[in-house]
């Protein structure tokens, strides 16, 4: 009878340590920064706004330069070119950011 109790004890203790380890582990790997950019529509919105923003800034800069220096069409042309290049750069960066943001599981987003 005393032997019985002795046999009952070890498994429950084992189970306890297993549960303890599980609870601790669960807390430890809770931190996993994720970046996701939602739906395809959201993505498209984001990319087009990047391109548009670059273009607008370029045009504004060129137009302002023309107004100040009187270089009439050239500033605007250069601005459009620069703005477009910057917009493309923005888009490339945004795509890279959404594609690479979580290094481990970036594939999930595509």
């Amino acid at each position: 009878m005393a032997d019985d109790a002795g046999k009952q004890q070890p498994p429950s203790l084992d189970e306890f340590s297993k549960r303890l380890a599980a609870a601790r582990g669960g807390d430890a790997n809770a931190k996993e920064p994720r970046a996701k950019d939602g739906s395809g529509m959201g993505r498209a919105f984001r990319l087009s706004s990047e391109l548009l923003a670059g273009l607008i800034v370029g045009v504004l800069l060129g137009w302002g330069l023309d107004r100040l220096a009187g270089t009439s069409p050239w500033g605007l042309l250069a601005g459009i070119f620069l703005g477009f290049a910057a917009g493309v750069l923005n888009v490339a960066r945004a795509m890279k950011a959404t594609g690479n943001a979580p290094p481990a599981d970036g594939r999930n987003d595509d």
Partner: protein
Amino acid sequence: MSLVAILVSAAAPAAAPVVEGAGEAGPGLPQMDASTYPSQLFWLAVTFGFLYWIMTSFVLPRLGGVIEERRDRIADDFDQAAEFKRKAEEAEAAYEAALADAKARARAIAAETRESLNEELAELQREADARVAASLAAAEARIAAMKEDAAAKVREAAAEVTRAVVEALIDETPTPEAVDSALNGVAKAA
């Protein structure tokens, strides 16, 4: 009114009746009306600043504090659980040790008891043997005595018979010596 007409008029909101405020707001986006910008910026600064103040001076310190505290507390609880587990293991080991100890002691006591009982038994047996031997000897002595007695009585009876037979045969009383020697002779012959 056909369905097409409905769809067209719904999609062309300009056709919908303008209820009010049609005065200064011309066509185009209300968002592009720069005259509303100062007011929007002012109130944005006020409200956003106020929210920032609330967050930094009340909400975030307490929220961060309680989360921190809980994290510590959980870590503490885990440590405590590990401590309990260690203690349980210790108790189990102590229990096993005590059990083994008790078993060994029980075995020793049993052996000791058995030994002393054996001794006692042997003593009793010896005593009994002695008693039996003594009574045996006494009995033998009595038997021997009774045998002797019996033999003597048989001889006496024989002598009596002899005497009576002789008297009857020759009408002469034999002397006891003669009977005795005669009986001795018979006993020797036998």
